[in-house]
């Protein structure tokens, strides 16, 4: 029964990892930017949510409604300024710029919020409550996060396949020069893709603050690494691959933890490595995106 429990918990936490990963995958797929600050932005969203809750005393869940759009706007602005400036030079420049951004964010957070861990919404029944099926305890939070992840991916898929801007995003990802010849300003389209990526990772960041704890370094040592692993396992450029990758990663971690609590993270990365060696294109290969 402990093994079944591990698998169920792993699947559910995979939803959280998918929220980390889908924006990373989208930004790479559309503008070929590997955003090394992706995880830090999730942490920023978490800290901003803590700030909003502390200052305005809004209910915890309201922080999503405020912070996610805020991060989306930040994504658009960062893309149109710093990231586009780097892209105009070279793809390599974007790596350096996002790495720099990551360092700046982490140290900024350390400066303002100290190295103490923070959690969001402790005491909320959604966060601490659970229900049981037989002897298996399932937390409300993880079930909710998993459902949100599925809804986000469904929404993204619908947006990309059926909306005008979704179509433009795919067109620009295919050939941005040809899109320009059709009258589309690819910089604006890039901005929209970045807004979506920042918005989704903000969701993930706040959810992580409820599920676990946030520290200034959580962005790179946990969120970014898990996002990378989920993207690679699932298959680069595949939307649903990020969920599959997240689930595989989550299950591997939970099974690892079942063997020995110190093996949790290691087990996840062993699977990550195995996929890289045996199936480098990921479990869902390219082309399944739209």
């Amino acid at each position, binding site marked *: 029964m402990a093994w079944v429990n591990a698998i169920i918990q792993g699947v559910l936490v995979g939803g959280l990892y998918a929220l980390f990963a889908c924006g990373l995958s989208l930004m790479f797929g559309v503008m070929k930017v590997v955003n090394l600050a992706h995880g830090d932005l999730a942490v920023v969203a978490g800290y901003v949510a803590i700030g909003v809750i502390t200052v305005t005393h809004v209910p915890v869940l309201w922080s999503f409604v405020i912070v996610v759009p805020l991060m989306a706007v930040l994504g658009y602005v960062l893309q149109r300024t710093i990231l586009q400036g780097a892209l105009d030079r070279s793809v390599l420049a974007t790596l350096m710029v996002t790495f720099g951004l990551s360092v700046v964010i982490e140290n900024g957070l350390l400066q303002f919020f100290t190295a103490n861990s923070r959690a969001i919404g402790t005491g909320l029944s959604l966060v601490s409550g659970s229900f049981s099926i037989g002897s298996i305890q399932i937390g409300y939070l993880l079930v909710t996060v998993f459902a949100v992840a599925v809804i986000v991916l469904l929404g993204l898929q619908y947006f990309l396949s059926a909306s*005008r801007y979704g*179509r*433009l995003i*795919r*067109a620009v*990802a*295919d*050939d941005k*020069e*040809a*899109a*320009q*010849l*059709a*009258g*589309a*300003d*690819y910089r604006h389209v890039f901005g929209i893709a970045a807004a979506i990526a920042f918005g989704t990772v903000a969701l993930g960041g706040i959810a992580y603050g409820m599920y676990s704890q946030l520290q200034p370094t959580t962005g790179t040592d946990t969120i970014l690494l898990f996002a990378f692993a989920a993207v690679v396992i699932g298959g680069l450029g595949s939307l649903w691959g990020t969920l599959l990758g997240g689930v595989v990663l989550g299950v591997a971690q939970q099974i690892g933890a079942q063997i020995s609590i110190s093996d949790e993270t290691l087990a996840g990365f062993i699977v990550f490595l195995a996929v890289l060696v045996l199936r480098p294109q990921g479990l869902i290969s390219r*082309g399944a*995106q*739209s």
Partner: protein
Amino acid sequence: MERRAGGGERPDRGTPLLEVHDLVVHHGQLRALDAISLQVFPGEVYAIIGANGAGKSTLLRTIAGLHSPTTGSVLFDGKDVTRVRPERRATRGIVMVPEGRRLFESLSVEENLKVGATYSRPGPWTIERVYEMFGWMRERRNQPSAQLSGGEQQTVAIGRALVANPRVLLLDELSLGLAPVVVQRIYGMLPQIMATGLTVLLVEQDVSQALRVASRIHCLLEGRTTLVGTPASISADQVEAAYFGLAGATAPGAAPEEGEA
């Protein structure tokens, strides 16, 4: 070494729609275009011919805004658009069908047309009208564009440009990589397209094809203009001389040039 045949005859149609003045374009150190000037009048088919590397595509891409000239200017409808971004030129009415078709491969046929129509000007062309002209496209509108044959892709690429309702349509090497019979069919549609009030500036390596459809011919050689004239007013010898840069090709007895594959 500018050689103009038959004088600077131009169709007497008022002011030019598109003008290029003394355009110089560099690719790094290489001077790809050297002091190119041309005027395209409303309703004409202006063809730029020349061998590989003559600068034809560079000229067209500069007019579309994809290259920045070192010096010189591009005027559209009397206004200077030299510094205008390509997407703004497209919405003003300069729309290019790029070399190699460049369809959005992960999009279906209809989605390609929809992208073309997203920022369209008001005008006669709609996706529906494109379907009326090419019946097969409607039947296969949900197919991924990557599955189409080369000729079909070229037709979709033209359709994608048309639904933007261009005032001047830039066609870059339509015949590239296509069978002659397919090329014939595609150029055969040109009169129908022109009938909606378009102006066409095209680049073509296939000289005989260009001579057949164009109202005026402009030959480039290594980035320079070597010949401008109407197909009727220039001889095969002159075209050959301008195309290959043969100094004595205007001498009597030179073999008529049928065109370059």
